[in-house]
């Protein structure tokens, strides 16, 4: 087994969560990278839907933007953006919504709007995009982002897209159709919602990562499942596919795939 980076582990671990044949609504950046890796490895029949309109996109390189030409040219069909949100997402046809975030809290709520006060923000982030309704209506949601004190916070400045709200059955009370986030995949570990509380707890540590590292990189008092698994290291096949995808992307764009 060759050496691999923590980012590669994160992408591979996220890709493994997409079952073959799943219909996946993909955010740009890390979700898109993981979803395309899944398509190129374990799940060749995964259906990738991008909010700009492509359904069944099969890009050979990672898109830099949500509307890159190759997404349209390789898709089964391209529909207007209104239709994507109305018929395909709100219509209940998305198995997995795959999202990135600027910040996440212990209930899988996402902030992509502001740091600080909304009306006089410290940092103005890009905003909602398609995420609030993906988080609401996809049957399941996966979140992928690098873990740090700044990204995994105790209290979000702003809830852009709801996960399990205030925990417990809050999401159900809100009347949201989808099950909400079922996994957060980071460069250190995998977190899943605890039964009942819906608080995210660590269920799998990536190889070589200690509990102390995870605690230090989490802004709330992170808890661990009774039995914590060790994530299987990337296989040679997974690494080869990921690196080839990144090399093709760099050659095509002169830069890595878009991060957000």
């Amino acid at each position, binding site marked *: 087994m060759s050496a691999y980076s923590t980012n590669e582990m994160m992408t591979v671990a996220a890709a493994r969560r997409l079952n073959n044949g799943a219909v996946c609504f993909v955010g740009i950046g890390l979700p898109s990278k993981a979803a395309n890796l899944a398509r190129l490895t374990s799940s060749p029949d995964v259906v990738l839907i991008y909010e700009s309109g492509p359904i069944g996109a099969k890009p050979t390189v990672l898109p830099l933007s949500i509307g890159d030409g190759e997404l*349209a040219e390789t898709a089964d069909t391209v529909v207007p*953006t209104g239709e994507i949100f109305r018929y395909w997402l709100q219509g209940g046809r998305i198995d997995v919504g795959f999202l990135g975030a600027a910040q996440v809290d212990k209930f899988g709520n996402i902030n992509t*709007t502001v740091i600080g006060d909304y009306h006089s923000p410290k940092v103005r982030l*890009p905003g909602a995009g*398609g995420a609030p309704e993906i988080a609401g209506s996809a049957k399941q949601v996966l979140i992928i982002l690098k873990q740090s004190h700044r990204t995994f916070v105790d209290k979000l400045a702003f809830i852009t897209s709801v996960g399990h709200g205030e925990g417990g059955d809050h999401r159900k009370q809100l009347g949201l159709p989808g099950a909400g986030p079922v996994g957060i995949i980071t460069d250190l570990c995998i977190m899943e919602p605890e039964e009942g509380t819906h608080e995210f707890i660590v269920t799998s540590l990536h190889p070589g990562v200690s509990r102390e590292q995870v605690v230090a990189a989490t802004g709330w008092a992170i808890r661990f499942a009774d039995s914590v698994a060790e994530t299987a290291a990337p296989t040679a096949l997974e690494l080869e596919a990921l690196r080839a995808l990144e090399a093709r992307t760099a050659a095509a764009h002169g830069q890595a795939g*878009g991060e957000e």
Partner: protein
Amino acid sequence: MAEIISLGEAVKRFVNDGDTVALEGFTHLIPTAASHEIIRQNKRELTLVRMTPDLVYDLLIGAGCAKKLVFSWGGNPGVGSLHRLRDAVEKGWPQPLEIEEHSHADMANAYVAGASGLPFAVLRAYAGSDLPKVNPLIKTVTCPFTGEVLAAVPSVRPDVTVIHAQKADRKGNVLLWGILGVQKEAALAAKRCIVTVEEIVDDLNAPMNACVLPSWALTAVCHVPGGAHPSYALGYSERDNRFYQAWDPIARDRETFTAWIDTYIRGTEDFAAFQQKIAEGK
């Protein structure tokens, strides 16, 4: 019937100070040339509507043309921040910018409602999100049949929409393809619609069911080849990713930005002259 005229004339006649303007195009077919012309003609106090402000509104905001922005995702795709947008929101430069913020699904639905002649759009959205707390226009409506509480948002009805497309014929019928975003809805939601096109041909040869905007539903058609750059027109150009990257340091600094628009936009007569100047600078 749409008039086939220059972009300069179209902006002069159909974009007024204080208008609500939508320059649409979802990454693909962004009407950049029109934003340049709006800057050249120094249109002011505009309310800018667009799902993804992109470089096209970073320009207009930084140039001081905007008083308000209605949007749902404001970043430089694949690169990072829109610095002129952020500077206006965070520091009020060059003037304070009122923002009205939505989600993509909300805005897409609001355009559909606008094109449909409805006062508002209904969608299943925002439960649990903080966005309704900061945007009082996001309200709820109860379904009279099931009792379900749904989001209600006002329709988008711009004074003028501008889109870019691949082809027009000599009568001003317009054909577009590829990623269509909300262009058709934005065109039909507006009181006036200007379309810039890559080429004007004798016959569109449009396949049945293709996205064709009939001339009689449009106001003006302008021949502006490459007018979407650094966005692209499928079949004519590719997205200029390097320009999106190069924009970051230009827009990051107020003086660099102002010097850039003074040289390349205010200092050129039209988009063709802009393209020539950019090519010379390479």
